[in-house]
C-alpha cells in the first residue's frame, strides 16, 4: 500500500511513522477478517478432535486463496468506479492490495 503514502514529498517523522503503522494495521485487519471467515467456514463447531484433519486443512488453504481473489476483485472494481467518476481511465492493479 505504500503508493498511498509514497507520493507525497517531505513527510514529517510523525507522519511517516503513522503511515507505516496504518499500513500494518490494514494488513492485520484483513488477516483478522479472513481468519474469522475461514475458521467459521472450514471448521465445524463440534470439535471431535484437536488436530486439523485433511479436509479442514485443504479448505483453509483454498479459503485463503479465494479471500485474496475477492479482495483483488473488489479493489479493482472500486478503482474502476473511482476512475469513472473522475472521468479518467481505470488504473490497473489493486489499489487495496493487502
Amino acid at each position, binding site marked *: 500500500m505504500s503508493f498511498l503514502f509514497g507520493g507525497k514529498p517531505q513527510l514529517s517523522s510523525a507522519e511517516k511513522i*503513522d503511515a507505516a503503522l*496504518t499500513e500494518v*494495521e*490494514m494488513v492485520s*485487519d*484483513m488477516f483478522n*477478517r*479472513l481468519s*474469522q*471467515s475461514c475458521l467459521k*467456514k*472450514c471448521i465445524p463447531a463440534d470439535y471431535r478432535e484437536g488436530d486439523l484433519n485433511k479436509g479442514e486443512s*485443504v*479448505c483453509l*488453504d*483454498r*479459503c485463503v*486463496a*479465494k*479471500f485474496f*481473489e*475477492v*479482495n483483488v*476483485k*473488489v479493489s479493482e*472494481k*472500486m478503482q474502476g*468506479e473511482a476512475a469513472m467518476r473522475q472521468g479518467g481511465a481505470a488504473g490497473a492493479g489493486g489499489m*487495496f492490495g493487502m
Partner: protein
Amino acid sequence: MDSLNPAEQRELSSRMEKKQMKEFMTMYSKLVQRCFDDCVNDFTTKSLISREEGCVMRCVDKYLKGSERLGSRFQEQNAAMQAGQLPGR
C-alpha cells in the same frame, strides 16, 4: 465546537482526516469480508468460480448503493433531529 481557534481547527482537521482514512479502510475490509461470506461457500475449487465472482460483483454494487442511500437518510434524520430537539441552536 464553535469556539475552536484556528490552530485548534487545523489540529482537529488533521486528526479528522486520519480518522476518515481509517474509517474508509475499515469500510473497505468489511465490504470484502461481507461479500466473501455471502458469496463464497464452495471450497472444492481453489479459484473463484464464475457464479461466485458474479455474486461478489453484484454484492459490492448493491452494498455501495445501499450505504450511500443510508448515508443520505442518516444525514437528513440527524439534521431534522438537531433542528427539532435543540431549537435555537
